[in-house]
């Protein structure tokens, strides 16, 4: 366990100076470096939220593993959900380097204290949602995360490098699911379009509120955790989506969406931020089942973890009893 550095740890200010230099030089902060308490706190919150999102994000897709309509898709989907569990574990490890242990973070998740990405409070009533999540949700995640590969905190940046690779793979798989549907029967095409209609706006809101309403972003950018503002990332995402939607043949559900020659970007309509706030406040379509489902799994598994602990303890005391006496005790 890593002990937290408090301001007291840096009486002469040398830690802060070194930290500022590293940030200014675009270098990495490593676990053993001094860092401001607020920087640490921001990172723990962000990384553990990200981990929680991966874990909760398993559910909307896990919903279709048993019903995937072809064995190939079943295998891809299962692997994807497995990747998400892996990302969760990987990110928890990164957060642990900041002195917060995994059990605490997980406990905060299943008691509802910790947040996770609001997008996973939407549900997946149709198979096409496996496509939309990959294409739109993972797509937005990538726009968000690629800059995070250069985040100033070393373990986080490195975790993101690995995660981004897999995410871009996931996005392409989602795109392919939708493409197959759009080239399929009328019922399949309708399924794809209906799903895109539901996921488009929530995906755009994944970048967070407009810059004007996002006061914390400023500090994160100064610390080089965040590299671009919410609105910049959102614009980048929309610009990326439009040509892909054309290839798919799906209509993005925004009548105001059009190319702005002057800006060199697509204009798009106002988003329903009231919806965003509602979901964030726990009143999304699936908030009620997401955490309780993971908590139920955790509680049902308590006897298993207890057995594993008991067994490990027994093995440890057995090993201790059988260990040869240390030399300094022998002589």
């Amino acid at each position: 366990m890593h002990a937290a550095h408090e301001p007291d740890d840096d009486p002469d200010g040398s830690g802060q100076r070194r930290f500022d230099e590293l940030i200014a030089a675009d270098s990495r902060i490593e676990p053993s470096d001094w860092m401001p308490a607020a920087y640490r706190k921001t990172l723990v919150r962000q990384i553990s939220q990200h981990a929680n999102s991966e874990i909760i994000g398993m559910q909307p897709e896990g919903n279709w593993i048993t019903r995937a309509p072809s064995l190939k898709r079943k295998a891809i989907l299962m692997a994807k959900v497995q990747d998400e569990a892996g990302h969760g574990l990987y990110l928890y490890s990164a957060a642990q380097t900041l002195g917060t242990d995994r059990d605490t973070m997980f406990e905060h998740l299943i008691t509802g204290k910790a947040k996770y990405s609001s997008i996973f409070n939407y549900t997946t009533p149709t198979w096409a949602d496996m496509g939309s999540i990959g294409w739109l949700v993972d797509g937005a995640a990538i726009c968000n995360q690629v800059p995070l590969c250069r985040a100033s905190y070393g373990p986080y940046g490195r975790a993101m490098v690995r995660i981004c690779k897999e995410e871009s793979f996931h996005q392409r798989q989602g795109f392919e699911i939708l493409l197959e549907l759009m080239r399929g029967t009328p019922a399949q095409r309708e399924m794809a379009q209906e799903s895109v209609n539901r996921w488009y706006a929530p995906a755009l809101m994944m970048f967070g509120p407009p810059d004007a309403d996002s006061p914390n972003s400023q500090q994160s950018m100064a610390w080089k955790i965040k590299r671009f503002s919410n609105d910049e990332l959102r614009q980048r995402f929309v610009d990326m989506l439009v040509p892909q939607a054309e290839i798919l043949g799906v209509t993005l559900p925004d009548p105001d969406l059009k190319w702005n020659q002057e800006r060199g970007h697509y204009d798009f309509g106002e988003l329903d931020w009231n919806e965003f706030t509602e979901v964030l406040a726990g009143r999304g379509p699936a908030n009620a089942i997401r955490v309780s489902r993971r908590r139920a799994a955790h509680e049902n598994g308590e006897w298993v973890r207890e057995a594993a602990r008991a067994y490990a303890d027994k093995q440890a005391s057995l090993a201790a009893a059988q260990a040869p006496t240390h030399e300094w005790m022998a002589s």
Partner: protein
Amino acid sequence: SDAVARYALGLGDDALVLAQRLGEWVTNAPELEEDVALSNIALDLLGHARSLLTYAGSAWGQSEDDLAYFRDEPQFVNRQLFEQPNGDFAQTIARQLIASAYFIGLYRALSASPDPMLSGIAAKALKEVDYHLDHSAQWLLRLGQGTAESHRRMQRGLDTMWVFSDELFSDDSLPTGQDAAALAGIAVTPSSLREGFDALVPRLITEAGLTVPSAPYARGGGRLGVHTEYLGPLLAEMQVLARVHPGASW
């Protein structure tokens, strides 16, 4: 040949049905590491199933998906062990222990088959099921020797699944006559795998401080299309979407 295809179909159904069961654990495992481990095993099994069903289907002009999604319960020829419900984690581990030990013997023998497709699939699978057995055996120890509750549950899990172990070694579905000749040397005779299983699994169970069950074995007949009542709902869920859109491509 048709006999070889039917042989591959049986093995493929075993792997497919077990993968489907393990898939039900995803997001419900006792810890994240087990979400990963169980879906890893499920993915391996699904891979075996796809290779085997593709090979079987090639004899009949059918795809893996034709076989997986458009057969009814009596046409599925998996052994009954694989369709048994997950129960609690101990019951899943018991099923997995028996299954993995059986698969190791099977794929070891089959990797020497003169049929290059079967031997190739088997050789690749062998490495994977070796890991699967390791996973179950570890948990068998932990649960058998962990707490009083885990011991009780693990024993109950073994008792529940053990009755389906005998069927794995039944030669009930071996073809006769000309088909038998076509299959001779290519397929593994199930009963030939019993000795290896008996030398391994009871020892693992005993080492975990548990008792090798002695209840009478189930009759089996899975290879002949006879199933316990747990298979029907499993197939209903697995096949629902594909069947609502017959002929669609995904």
